[in-house]
């Protein structure tokens, strides 16, 4: 049945046009589990929750967060996206100077990887470095409220320099 959702992933399969018997319509209108277009409030709420759950379950498919440098210690530097280059350089220099510092660079934001809590709890201090006003730090505060996050922000159209990062230690 073309509208059926996979039990584990909650996603619908794709059927390629041209295959006899699998004719179906996809599109912006919301449907019930069976594929009938539905405008009812109850179905809408149910479908919003199913879609949210589908996104949450993507966490089963994404790789775990990888920690560079010390796997536990005094300081965890947190970045995301393109910040990896300068953050890893700063962390390596700090490790050479004798500090117990680790680095995580998030590539998956929604949903977050499953091992975030395990990684975070092994460090005494967490600092989130972002080239904005701190959106990811605030996001982590919502998703993982059990930790305290410090943040370094720079909004100059320039990347962090290694010294920017080393100053926080």
């Amino acid at each position, binding site marked *: 049945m073309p509208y059926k959702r996979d039990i584990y992933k909650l996603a619908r399969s794709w*059927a*390629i*046009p*041209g*295959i*006899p*018997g*699998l*004719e*179906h*319509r*996809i*599109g*912006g*209108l919301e449907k019930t589990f069976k594929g*009938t*277009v539905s405008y009812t409030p109850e179905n809408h709420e149910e479908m919003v929750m199913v879609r949210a759950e589908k996104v949450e379950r993507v966490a089963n498919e994404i790789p775990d967060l990888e920690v560079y440098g010390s796997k536990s210690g005094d300081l965890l530097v947190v970045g995301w996206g393109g910040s990896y280059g300068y953050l890893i350089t700063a962390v390596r220099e700090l490790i050479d100077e004798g500090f117990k510092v680790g680095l995580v660079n998030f590539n998956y934001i929604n949903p977050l990887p499953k091992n975030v809590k395990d990684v975070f709890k092994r460090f005494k201090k967490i600092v989130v470095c972002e080239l904005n006003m701190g959106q990811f730090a605030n996001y982590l505060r919502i998703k993982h409220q059990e930790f305290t996050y410090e943040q370094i922000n720079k909004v100059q159209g320039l990347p962090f320099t290694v010294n920017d990062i080393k100053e926080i230690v």
Partner: protein
Amino acid sequence: MADTMVYNYTAKDFKSDQEVRWCPGCGDHAVLSSVQKALAELSIPKEKFAFISGIGCSSRFPYYMNTYGFHSIHGRAAAIASGVKTANPDLSVWQITGDGDALAIGGNHFIHAIRRNIDINIILFNNEIYGLTKGQYSPTSTKGLVTKTSPFGTVEEPFSVGELVYRR
């Protein structure tokens, strides 16, 4: 390409099981039943049809057809239909759009679809208004028409759609 097999389709074979939600008396109903009757007469197997629509009253169309269909995003039916046809030229690709969807937000994709001329069939439902959103004027509304977004009458000359698609 029509093949030499004869398919005994009737218009009913092309009706989906979905409730048709257009207002009673709307011309869209007539287009729907005409297309269903017409497709039944073509010698093309039902699974080879693909109906791609944008957004608007016209674009509800794919849900009412028992074929492959894609109700996509506003103005982009031409882009998606071009993609569908290019990926699988054996399909009979029909683009369903309206005067707002194709000529306002979709104007860019529309002119490129015309320019490319890749054997897709475009059905543009021209009711000279934005119907689904309850009555704002469109690029084909008559000059001077009083609508919700032109309380003193529009000040623009409308498109003549036929003139837009003419090529040397």
